[in-house]
């Protein structure tokens, strides 16, 4: 079963993404900041990480800087933020994020279909 990690500080969003993705046959874990996400990445190998950028403790950029892609060759990282451009997003893509999904523009169905597409493409 494909394993997905959701990294999102906003509780309602984190729980709704978990709920949506768990309707498919995925193992879904969640973290509320980059630091907890790194700890989970040490314990489990994920197929897909949905990463928010603006988070307390350790934000998405800091997570990407600390994360070693070479240790997780199968893992794809997709940014899920409310940024549609700007330096932060550009930096995230430079640091190895695959693409960006704008939270405020996506419905649950659209999220599922994007995740399905990205995970199957691995």
């Amino acid at each position, binding site marked *: 079963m494909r394993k997905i990690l959701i990294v999102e500080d906003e509780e309602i969003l984190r729980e709704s993404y978990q709920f*949506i993705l768990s309707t498919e046959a995925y193992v879904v874990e969640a973290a509320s900041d980059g630091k907890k996400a790194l700890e989970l990445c040490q314990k489990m190998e994920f197929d897909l990480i949905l990463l928010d950028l603006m988070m307390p403790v350790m934000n998405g950029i800091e997570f990407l800087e600390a994360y070693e892609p070479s240790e997780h060759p199968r893992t794809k990282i997709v940014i899920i933020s409310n940024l549609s451009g700007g330096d932060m997003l550009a930096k995230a893509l430079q640091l190895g994020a695959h693409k960006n999904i704008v*939270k405020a523009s996506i419905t649950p169905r659209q999220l599922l279909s994007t995740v399905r597409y990205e995970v199957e493409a691995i």
Partner: protein
Amino acid sequence: MKTHTPTTHLTSLRTQHTVVFDELERYKLLVESIEDYAIFMMDPKGYIQTWNKGAQKNKGYAAHEIIGKHFSKFYTEIDMASKKPERELELAQKFGRVEDEDWRVRKDGSKFWANVVITALYDNGGNLVGFAKVTRDLTDRKKQEDSMRTANLTLKEQQKKLEALNTSKDEFVSLASHQLRTPATAIKNLLAILLEGFSGPLEAAHRELISKAYASNERQLAIVESLLKVAQVDAGKVVLNKTPTDIKTLLYGILEDQSDAINERGQTCKLTMDSSLSDKIVIDENNIRMALENLIDNASKYTPHGGKIILRAGEKDNQIDISIQDTGVGIASKDMDKLFERFSRIPNDMSGGVVGSGLGLYWADKIIGLHGGHIEVDSKVNEGTTFHVLHPRVTPGA
């Protein structure tokens, strides 16, 4: 032949003496009569030897009160303590003259701002015989200068405060909008989970209510998005990401995205492309797309059911001209200058039913401006409006 007798010689001397005397009297009259300048002589050590009307008016001393006294009387205590009077005499002797602007003191102890020139005087043998001092009261001018300086500083401070306030305002709008977006996104998700059947089927009545809540929240998100975009553009934080873009693909893509909304209003939309626009042009595709979507959305919103939207892309004066023409309510000429202002909502027959933040045109105008382009508008009330987006034709490699 004229013979010079002692009498003739004496007469000649007397005549010359009279001429010189008259000359001296004239200069004395000149100096003594001047009231606007204090003009007086000092001996080599600085003791006052003459005194004119101007000096009395300027410093308050009558001639008999001051002649024979030292000129340092007119300096402030600080200047006297630092030996300024002596230094000025030294400089005048060294360089011929010295000029100064500083405070001087009157007989009554009051101070005035003076322009002072001290000139060293020498006899024919080159010996210092004294100094001439000319003093002018510039207190009024100094007061004016000080007032202007204070006013200028106040203006500069006010300007700094305003700039700081403006930056604060932009940051506040940006922060508030960002903060507002988070709960609105959460609401969107939760309502969409219900509407998309993730929690099981919904009763029709519940679906209707939830759909209305969802639509309302979408409007809120759109307004917050507009506020954020405007705050960014106002704060000068928009960085254009320019890439070579195919105009035809861009416009067809926009039309496809907008077609549902246009069709729901029973309107038709068509695109006409000039064949000369086959080259790619260098633009920030994302931002230009959003600006054009704004204009097309506006055109559709302000056009009645069954109306037409015509998109044309051509060239005008070496600029790309993308025009959006509608058969809508039009804009009165008196409302034209308000069109691109923030929160501008021009009242017309349709505006009551139109939902929007009033920020779209403002933002589109700014974005096109950042590209070096501009927007022109032609309109007739009840006939329709055409927006022309004019953009410099910059091809890749140019």
